[in-house]
Each structure stands twice: as structure tokens, then as C-alpha cells.
């Protein structure tokens, strides 16, 4: 393989993997609290449209980022209310979020006399470090050639991992996801922990969506995010609920997403549709091989995942 093709593939793979990093780590934090949110796709696409809109109106990228975080968190609040306060089916509520979020995003994109659809973004995320650094062969671009959001995603992964495994609130979070009744007995407010982490997950998914509309494909289309939300849910399993692993698997799938293009330039004929199956196929195989029976605990799935917690009424 030609070296420049390899570099292009790796760089594009990191770009395409970045929304997946946000979506996956967000869902990891949500699921660690014991709540399954299948609405990642809906929160992501809603974040994408609101981030795009805010940047479109103000010309400021960081206001777009802020809008996408708020939008994702707001959408996830519906799920938190349904699954924590009302304790109804998390599965159906998550799917509802996806359908609703997609509808709202597509609607906003088309509404009004001068709709967003087809418009290019007013500003685009671009590499921030001096170009001289990128001239270092191979590691130059791979480490220094990225935009601010990618560096932010690395910091976020490091912070999430530290938080989860090295801090008191992280321990609390894991306790709530493993055994809410014992956590409650130890004086932890289970509902609050769950609300917070569902919303953090929503905010990160929203930001992941905005990375599509403000960096990868800086314009508005009906669905700029493809199936990234669903892929994120699959990656949570492949990452076995750990943030650093999420970063690596997201990049692997980012690169896999770019392979279509790479194969075309190398004139290797592999149908795109078959490559698109890959993340889903691998997730299923991982699921069957790694999570069946007793091995599930070893892998790290939170024991109380998806189970509504009924506090004993006194």
C-alpha cells in the first residue's frame, strides 16, 4: 500500500471515528449508571442540527458546540424522566427518542422560507497546531494535524476513564449500575446519579453529531450522521464499557468506514454495502462470544443495566 494512501486513510479514519468516540463514551457513562439508552441516533442527529444552526446564525463554532451539547442533553432528559422517574420500558423509550429526534432534526432542516438544507456551514473546524509540526513524517499529522474537537475528544476520553476508575463519584456511578439497592443503602441518591449520567451521555452524543455538520460534512443534509448513533451502541459492547477501548474501537471503525474510498483509489473492488455491515457483524459476534453466560461479568456489562430500580416505599 502506498504510504500517502495509508496516511490519508488513517487521518480520515480518525476523523470519521471521532463522532463515534463521543457517542460511545457518552453511552458508556449512561450504561454504567444502569440505564440503556437506545436513543443515541436521535440525540446525535438533534445535536447535529442544533450545532449547525447555532453556528449558522452566529458564525461561531464554539456556540455550535455548546448548542449541540445542550440539545443532546435536553433530548436525553426525556429518556431520563421515562426510565428513572416513571420506570417504564427503557427500550421503547430509547427507540421513541430516536424516531422523535430524527423527525425534529429533519423538520428543522427543512422548515422556513430559507431552510438550512443544502447550506454550507458558516465556519468549519480545521487543524489548530502550526503546520511545521505536521511536517514530521508519519507521527506529525497523526498527532499534531487535527482540529480542536479531536484533541477535545482525547481529553474527554482520558477524563472519563480517570473519572470512572479513579474517583469517588466514578465509584459511586459504577455502584449504581451494579447494585442500585446497595448503593441506595450506602446513602447514594440513585435517581440523581442516573439522571446526571443519562444527560452527560446525551450531551456527548449531541457533540458527536455536531462534528459531522461542522467538520466532516460541513453543510446540512437530511441525515448527515448516517448510522453513527447505532454504531456507537454496538461499540459500547466492543469497548466492554471502558473509555480508552472506546477510542480505539471507534478509530478502527472510522478507518473501516474510510476503506471504501481507499479500496477505490487502490482499485480493489469490495462493495461498500458489505463493508458497512462490518461494525454490526463484529458487534454481534463479540456479543455472542464474550457476553454469553458467566463471561458477561468478566466483560464488564453493568449488572443492573436496563433494569428499572424500584426503591422500597416506606
Amino acid at each position, binding site marked *: 500500500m502506498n504510504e500517502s494512501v495509508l496516511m490519508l486513510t488513517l487521518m480520515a479514519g480518525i476523523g470519521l471515528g471521532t463522532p463515534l468516540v463521543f457517542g460511545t463514551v457518552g453511552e458508556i457513562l449512561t450504561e454504567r449508571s444502569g440505564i440503556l439508552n437506545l436513543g443515541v441516533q436521535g440525540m446525535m442527529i438533534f445535536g447535529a442540527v442544533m450545532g449547525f444552526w447555532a453556528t449558522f446564525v452566529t458564525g461561531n463554532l464554539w456556540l455550535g458546540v455548546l448548542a449541540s451539547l445542550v440539545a443532546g442533553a435536553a433530548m436525553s432528559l426525556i429518556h431520563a424522566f*421515562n426510565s428513572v422517574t416513571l420506570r*417504564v420500558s427503557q427500550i421503547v423509550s430509547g427507540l*421513541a427518542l430516536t424516531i422523535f429526534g430524527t423527525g425534529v432534526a429533519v423538520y428543522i432542516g*427543512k*422548515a422556513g422560507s430559507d431552510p438550512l438544507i443544502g447550506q454550507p456551514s458558516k465556519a468549519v473546524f480545521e487543524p489548530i497546531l502550526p503546520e511545521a509540526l505536521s511536517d514530521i513524517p508519519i507521527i506529525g499529522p497523526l498527532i499534531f494535524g487535527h482540529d480542536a474537537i479531536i484533541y477535545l475528544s482525547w481529553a474527554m476520553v482520558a477524563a472519563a476513564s480517570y473519572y470512572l476508575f479513579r474517583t469517588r463519584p466514578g465509584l459511586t456511578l459504577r455502584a449504581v449500575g451494579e447494585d442500585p439497592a446497595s448503593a441506595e443503602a450506602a446513602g447514594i441518591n440513585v435517581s440523581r446519579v442516573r439522571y446526571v449520567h443519562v444527560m452527560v451521555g446525551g450531551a456527548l452524543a449531541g457533540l458527536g453529531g455536531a462534528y459531522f455538520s461542522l467538520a466532516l460534512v460541513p453543510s446540512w443534509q437530511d441525515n448527515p450522521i448516517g*448510522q453513527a448513533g447505532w454504531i456507537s451502541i454496538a461499540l459500547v459492547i466492543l469497548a466492554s464499557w471502558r473509555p480508552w477501548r472506546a477510542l480505539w474501537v471507534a478509530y478502527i471503525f472510522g478507518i473501516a468506514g474510510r476503506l471504501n474510498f481507499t479500496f477505490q483509489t487502490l482499485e480493489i473492488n469490495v462493495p461498500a454495502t458489505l463493508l458497512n*455491515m462490518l461494525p454490526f457483524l463484529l458487534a454481534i459476534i463479540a456479543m*455472542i462470544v464474550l457476553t*454469553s453466560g458467566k463471561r458477561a461479568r468478566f466483560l464488564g456489562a453493568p449488572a443492573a443495566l436496563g433494569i428499572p430500580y424500584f426503591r422500597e416505599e416506606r
Partner: protein
Amino acid sequence: MSRRFIVEPRGLASWWLKLVIPIGSVLAAMVLGAAFLALTGNDWIEVYQKMADAAFGSGRGVAETLVSATPLILTGVAAAVAFKMLVWNIGGEGQLIFGAIMAAGVGIWLSESTPAVIAVVVVVAAGAVGGAFWASLSAVPKVYLGTNEIITTLMLNFIALNLMQYLVLGSSSPWRDPEATQFPQGRPIIENARIPEFFHRLDWGLFVAIGVAVAAWFVISKTRSGFEYRIVGNSFDTARYAGIRVPRKVLGTFLASGAAAGLAGSILVAGILGKMDPRSLDLGLGFTGIIVAALARLNPIAIIPVAVLMGALNNAGPSLQSIGVPDATVQILQGAILIFAVAGEFLILNRIRRPDPTAGEAKATAEAQTA
């Protein structure tokens, strides 16, 4: 410790509550939709009138509404029979698509001279077999290895979708029409395998769908097997003590659920489409079926009118573009209906009441006495 409200599980909800909550969900979603339309500068009354007119305003409109409702009845039944037994089959989408792949495959392979009755039955049945097979990919690992079916069914949706696109758009498989050179299309199935139409584009597939819904209701509520099924749905442990073979029951339900979704695919292929058309089969019919099942509260008979309502919404979408309103309005309404329906389940399962003041006093007196 005083509280303003007490929430407690309700035993059996009254029938009117079970009727009021779903209707209320639809109304609440319509209010939310109206607010959304008004905020974005649209006349919501005009929009709703336009939708009602497109869905029910003419014979043709009614026919199209029922055409849209047909697959939704089946994907709704698929979701309902599984969810009732706590089998979270959210793979209706993939099972529908694989059903369509099987049906189209058989419909293309059959000889042109196959008698119509046999051809239709074989093609439609192939879809059910295909759906059950696709469900088995999740069901077998669930039953024998304990693999969580939520994720596997979900992932299999996208695998089926990409497989269908590969067969028609990405390869020169038998499913692709060799004569369509401009833009890839599905190869038409034999004429004799097409389900006859009887009212505009509406075909007899509607009655197959209704028949499946009624049969599901009958089996669940009127037979011994259905009684066991309901026990398993309430508690795996109780069922085990009662000597019911739970794994077999779960497997059977899962496969039946997949078969229903697969039927939706084959009825589309043998009915209105006449071929495997990747665009017409990628409309989220499996997910909409989950909305149908939730709003019908998993009751197979109630699924029929609810599917007609959702079919009406789907059918009305395109008409909105003529008045400059995005057709995504329909998706907003459907998503909102599902959000309200799932939240409303709380009111059916629980009772909210004021605390009984005398109970508090009695306790205080008791405590005073022990002190």
C-alpha cells in the same frame, strides 16, 4: 416523614384507563405537534386538515392508508407477541427485509407457468420462513447461550439492510434486474406470484395481516398454549415451577415474531412492489411496528386500528410538501406518540394518591405508646 403524593403499583387497571391513555397519548402528541408547527410559522389547522384529507378524504386515500397499514399490522404483531413475553425483539426491520429477500428470491426462481394460487402462497410463505430464520440468529444464542437479544436484533437490522442493498445495488445477483441499466433495480417476480388488488392499489395482503392479528389474539387468549405463554410472560420462575419448558416457549415466540415481520416483507414484495425494491423496503416499518404495538398496549386486536392510524400518518406525509410543510412532521408525531404512550404506561401500572392523614396519626399514637 410526610409526602404530598404516594405512588404505588396498581393491581388491575380498569378498561377505560387502558383506552384513555393511548387516546390521550395521540392527542398529547398532536398538541405538541401543533405547537411545533405554530412555532415554525405553519398553520397547524391547515396541516392537520391536509393530513386527514390525504389519509381519508377519498377512496384512493383510504386505499393508500390501508396499503400503508398492512405491513404495520404485521410488524406490530411481531413486536407485541415478543414484548408480551419479555422477548425484546427490536429486529422487525431486519426480519421484514430478510423476509422480502427470501420472497423475492423464490418469486424470481419459480417458473413462469406456476399456477397463481401455489405461486402466491409459496412466495408469501417464503417471507415468513425468512423472517423466522433471521429471528433465529438472535433467538438461538439467547435461548442457549443467554446472549442479550436487544443488541443482536438491533444489529441484524443493519446487516439485513446492507445485504439487501448489496443484492440489488452492489452486485449482479439474481435479485437485480439485468434489464435496468440506467439505475439498479430489483428483478420483478413472476406475474403469477403477485397478490391480486381489489380496490385501487389495495390487495388481499390486508386480510392476511388482519388474519394474523386475529390468530395471534386467539392463540394467546383462548388456547392452553397461550395460557402457558401468558404465564411465561409474567414470570419465568412461576412458569418453570408450573413445569413449562421456558426456553422452548421463548424460542417459539421469537420465531413466530420473526415470521410475522417476514410476512410483512413478502406481502410487500408480492403485493404493491412486485420486486425487491431497496428504497421502498427501507422505511422504518419495523420500528413503526414497535410504535403500533406500544400504543395498542400489545393487544393484537387493538393493533389493527392503531396500524391504520399510523398508516394514515405515513400516507399523509408526502401530501404536506405541497403546502410547504416538511413531511418529517409525521415522524415527529409518531415519535411523540410513542414517548407519550410509553410514559402513559406509568399511569396504567401505578396509582398516585394523597397520603391517608389518619394513617399517619395512628402510627404516631402507636409510637407514643411504645415510648
